[in-house]
């Protein structure tokens, strides 16, 4: 080894150490704020619900809530890896599996709203006013009218797949033709639907919070199969010992308490309630 090489090695070593020191002093690395991480869905975040209720919880408990808003499928996988303390999502079968497989402690009902089928004002498939969601989808498929699907394993996407199954239509076989799989969030999918004049399944919260509806309108609503319940689960500290179980449970307890349920009921967009509290153990 030449002397140059040794010099060089020392230089690189020194710079590497300095870089590491800088990284550790990076913003936020030393933040000692008391917080929990909640993996949740875009519908709760984008609609503005969490922005409304979380400051109330923090004021009461002193616990900040950091929300990572992704699709239900991704949120569940985040929680399975132990990257969140609490899971707040909307696909009951997946939530129950999450608990059954030992990743979560217990599932609590929190609130519900509903899904709606939205589409262009001119409604080429003629589904306006249907109260049978599966029948409406069958009409859309028969008309081969464009349909924008989330296709991102979110709660809304899972529900859409269930509805196609109920309709007896293999929509994915038409992928790339009238069935457009956007593989993106609710808002992006609505942007796509607006752009190509497509139908889409949306949760009412995201729909009401979506600002550029243009000529998209609600065409189908009110089917019992469009019921959209949200559940909250503490990630199992037995499986992931670093989970902030006490603070996470405090958040869940607050959500299902009278105060939390009232905060959810009080949240409105343009005078309309977006979510309806339904925790079982809330005082009557």
């Amino acid at each position, binding site marked *: 080894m030449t002397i140059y090489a040794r010099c060089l090695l020392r230089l690189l070593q020194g710079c590497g150490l300095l870089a590491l020191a*800088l990284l550790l002093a*990076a913003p936020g690395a030393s*933040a000692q704020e008391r917080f929990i991480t909640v993996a949740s869905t875009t519908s709760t975040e984008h609609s503005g619900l969490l922005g409304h209720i979380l400051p109330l919880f923090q004021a009461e408990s002193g616990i900040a809530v*950091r929300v990572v808003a992704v699709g239900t499928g991704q949120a569940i996988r985040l929680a399975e*890896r132990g990257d969140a303390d609490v899971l707040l999502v909307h696909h009951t079968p997946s939530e129950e599996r999450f608990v059954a497989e030992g990743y979560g402690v217990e599932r609590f009902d929190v609130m519900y709203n509903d899904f709606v089928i939205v589409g262009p004002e001119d409604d080429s498939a003629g589904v306006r006013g249907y109260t049978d969601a599966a029948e409406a989808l069958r009409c859309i498929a028969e008309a081969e009218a464009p349909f924008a699907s989330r296709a991102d394993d979110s709660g809304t996407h899972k529900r859409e797949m269930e509805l196609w199954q109920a309709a007896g239509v293999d929509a994915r076989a038409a992928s790339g033709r009238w069935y457009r799989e956007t593989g993106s969030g609710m808002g992006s999918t609505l942007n796509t639907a607006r752009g190509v004049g497509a139908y889409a399944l949306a949760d009412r919260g995201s729909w009401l919070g979506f*600002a550029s509806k243009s000529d998209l309108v609600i065409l189908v609503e009110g089917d019992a199969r469009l019921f959209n319940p949200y559940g909250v689960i503490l990630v199992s500290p037995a499986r992931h010992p670093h989970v902030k179980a006490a603070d996470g449970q405090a958040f869940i307890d607050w959500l299902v308490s009278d105060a939390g349920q009232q905060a959810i009921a009080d949240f409105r967009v343009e005078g309309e309630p977006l979510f309806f509290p339904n925790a079982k153990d809330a005082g009557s």
Partner: protein
Amino acid sequence: MQDLWEAFAAAGALVWSLDRDLVAIVTRSLTITLTALAVSALISLPLGAALALFRFPGRTVIVVALNAFMGLPPVVVGLFVYLLLSRAGPLGTLGLLFTPTAMVIAQVLLITPIVAALTQQTIHDLWQEYRDQLRSFGAGPGRAIPTLLWEGRFSLLTALLAGFGRASAEVGAVMIVGGNIDHVTRVMTTAIALETSRGNLALALGLGLILIALSTGIAGTAYVLTDMARRRGA
């Protein structure tokens, strides 16, 4: 057309009102990106210089890798850092996922190849030019590194600006490793993505205009500073 005007109006209104959240987001973006740039400079300037001046085993591999990694897809870097920092990953116990530090790490990985490759080129050219001169002072390649880095400071600034631009404009990686958490890891680009998906297209574009204005401001400042320094040097 109307949307575009609304975007300009939204950007103007945001800047005019000095919206508190906006100021926080801009400050956070700049802090994270400048930290990443500083960390990356400490790695890539000496690395680039060493690659330009020395022949050692594995050098070719590193050079090829650096050039190839200049075009690393941010989402892939994001996924890599996510799996690294996730609780189930090798560095999970550090608890760095969804923090600004995680975003800094992702940005360092993204921009280091660019800055290092550009540094290598700059130093290589300077060494060709000054080799005999430096040798006559008895300075070998090792001793020449600080001199060459200093002589090349204006070109290196451009390399650093390229790194800054890539880091500040990037959304795929910081979205995955930062989680776009309000008041914690929400930066300009993730805020733009969020407003787009909420259908606030004018506001999203308005935020974009502010980001572009900021980058322009930084590039302009750098230009003025180097220009002044050059004149003083001349």
